[in-house]
């Protein structure tokens, strides 16, 4: 096989692969991570609030997202988002949503459930004495949470959050099932058009490997630098 390996097809399609495909992948990863962590932290606070009105829906949401395959959720949101758009904007027809927007909603909402569990573990690992000390100084719940608990919880969980981001980066390849052009989708399109499945998929695998591997090494470095000494 390797005698027949066509490096040229890879070289020719590099601009397409990276300008069209990889930018989609990276943008989706970055935005879904940031918004997902925000929503996830909110969900975690809801779950830990002790108020049934908040804990029950939050727990139900998180458990649902974690019970079902991501692929199924991608299909769900692909069909659901236009109807939600219709409901939110009171229009007569389901709204046509672009591929990127639909994917962003899906990934953010799905990954938020996982970020919620990470932040929940982080918040619960903060010693209760910290909260007591904040309260003894007269701080309200929001001050204690915002200035004492969340900063520490977040810093403790940064390695895990970053690892989840790498998982998110790899999960973006699943948008293939709704024929969206991310990096894998782009490689796939070139592979089918030029009949070079072996070259394109091998190349795609290598790129994913290099990025993920480098990122996880970087996470280890970050972990060492920002650990809080107690």
């Amino acid at each position, binding site marked *: 096989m390797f005698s027949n390996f066509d490096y040229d097809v890879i070289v020719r399609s590099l601009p397409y692969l990276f300008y069209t495909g990889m930018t989609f992948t990276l943008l989706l990863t970055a935005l879904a991570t940031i918004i997902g962590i925000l929503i996830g932290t909110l969900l975690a606070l809801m779950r830990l609030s002790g108020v049934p009105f908040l804990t029950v829906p939050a727990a139900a949401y998180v458990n*649902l997202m974690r019970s079902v395959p991501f*692929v*199924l959720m991608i299909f769900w949101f692909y069909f659901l988002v236009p*109807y939600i758009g219709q409901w939110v904007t009171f229009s007569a027809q389901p709204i046509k949503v672009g591929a990127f927007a639909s994917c962003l909603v899906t990934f953010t909402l799905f990954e938020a459930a996982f970020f919620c569990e990470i932040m929940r573990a982080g918040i619960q690992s903060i010693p209760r004495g910290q909260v007591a000390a904040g309260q003894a100084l007269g701080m309200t719940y929001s001050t204690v949470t915002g200035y004492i608990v969340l900063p520490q919880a977040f810093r403790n969980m940064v390695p895990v959050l970053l690892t989840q981001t790498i998982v998110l980066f*790899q999960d973006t390849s699943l948008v293939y099932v709704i024929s969206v052009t991310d990096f894998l989708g782009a490689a796939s399109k070139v592979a089918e058009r030029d009949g070079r*499945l*072996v070259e394109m998929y091998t190349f795609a695998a290598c790129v994913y490997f290099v990025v993920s591997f480098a990122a996880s090494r970087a996470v280890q470095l970050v972990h060492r630098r920002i650990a809080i000494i107690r």
Partner: protein
Amino acid sequence: MNYHWNWGIFWELSPDGVHTYFQTLMLGAGWTLLTAGCAFIIALTFGSLIGVLRTAPFSWAVRFGTAYVEVFRNIPLLVQMFLWYFVAPEVVPRSIGIWLKQLPDASFYTAVVALGLYMSARIAEQVRAGILSLPRGQRLASLALGLTLPQTYVFVLLPMTYRILLPPLTSELLNTIKNSAVALTIGLMELTARARAMQEFSFQVFEAFTAATIIYIVINLVVTLAMRLVERHVAVPGYLGFRPPAAGH
């Protein structure tokens, strides 16, 4: 809302003319469980082996194990499936390649192998963490008694490790079941694929996906409960999770 609901769709005949839509979904669920089950067996076997290698006192073993884990964890599952399905038949000697391409249920075997090896890397990490969490004296005591290293692993280290690992292994089993859905891209007609097919032919989008969601949730609950029973059954006295048998006869 312009959507036409029809919950009776499940009892209507699917395009294959033989099964109702409900039956096709059940068939899909069966394929999901079969694929996940076989893949998990591969994952446990290879994962345990690699996990053990990574804790062995030989640097070549540790390096090999680390490389294995890094390769299978840093490439997305979907890409790995494509590699096994599209690239592997081209890379092997011609005769094997031809045999592979003509295999009936090729997508099933490919999915099992791809999913199994992908999950084996994750299980390898769990096994390694589990072995490392055991007191160091365990290995030393075993060797001091004259047991060889393989015997130490088989009779002393691994039995305790697996008990410790039951909760994370349950998680990985559930992940395997969920990840089996990715195989629809290579043509495996598991549950999600069937739901998608049902949606494409009947246009009853939400009914189809709701049914699939409910089935996945039920599978999830059953597996979680079953594993909890296993945990209770194998728990060791004196460790967390052990419940003494009820007194009296």
